[in-house]
């Protein structure tokens, strides 16, 4: 099933942050800055990594080109999440949250047994 959001999970850290940054339309370099800001500077995104990710995400229809471009330069295309892309980010957030709760609960239970 191509359009099942679950089939895209788990996402790599870079992919997750790129998708999250595209909740609002952005061009390539703005994505790099946003990802750096979102992660408090911890996650740097190189141009090679970003370009590869954008090509793949366009192909998977998780993002789309908006058609607009930065006034000064029309080579800077803007991207934004598709409805499917948004669902994928939501599902990944839910997955990580339930996993982390599960993990902590399991560790706490083990701690009591000792």
């Amino acid at each position, binding site marked *: 099933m191509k359009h099942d959001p679950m089939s895209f999970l788990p996402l790599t850290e870079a992919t997750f942050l790129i998708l999250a940054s595209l909740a609002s339309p952005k061009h390539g*370099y703005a994505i790099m800055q946003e990802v750096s800001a979102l992660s408090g500077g911890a996650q*740097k995104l*190189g*141009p*090679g990594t970003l370009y590869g*990710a954008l090509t793949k995400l366009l192909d998977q229809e998780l993002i789309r080109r908006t058609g607009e471009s930065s006034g000064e330069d029309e*080579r800077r*295309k803007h991207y934004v999440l598709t409805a499917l892309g948004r669902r994928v980010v939501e599902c990944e957030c839910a997955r990580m949250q339930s996993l982390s709760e599960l993990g902590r609960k399991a560790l706490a239970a083990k701690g009591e047994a000792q």
Partner: protein
Amino acid sequence: MNQSGKTRSVFRFFFAWQDDQEEKWLEKMARQGWHLVRGGIVFRFVEGKPGEFRYRLDYRPGSNRSLEEYFTLFADSGWEHVCSFGGWHCFRTGDASAPEVFTDVDSKVEKYRRLLMLLLVFLMASLVILSRSPRSSSSVLYEFYAWAKVVQSCVVVLLGYAAVRVYLHIRRLRRKAAELTRRSVEGKC
């Protein structure tokens, strides 16, 4: 780069699976004041002020026109496009704050996978050509075919060797990635 206009050409075999070494070589040349202008089998340099540069090579087949956005993204993040040859693109930066070209192992692995796919296609094509036996009664043509087979066999061996080297490189990268993940988790907990 304060070019003096003096140029120099260096013949060098470019081994795709050790492109990190090629990058180091280009950086060494830049420190000696030789800055890359054109690459391929012959690398052309122009003399200028010696300097600290980072050189990076990416493999991405496709016309340079279709890659306009790609080059813009590099330029925006501080990387100058130096030249392209046979699907390879060479970038350099003298800016220490410019991010690395590849910031995760997955995208680095992808680069070698693109290369591996191409090598495998060529390898298959060469094997198909090699396996076809020509029907000819002429002895001159027969001799020509015999030599052609020798040359083709060499190509097959070379392609096969390159494919194995690229594959091993991918495996090494994956192993290194697992190690890095382990270390980053250790740091957080």
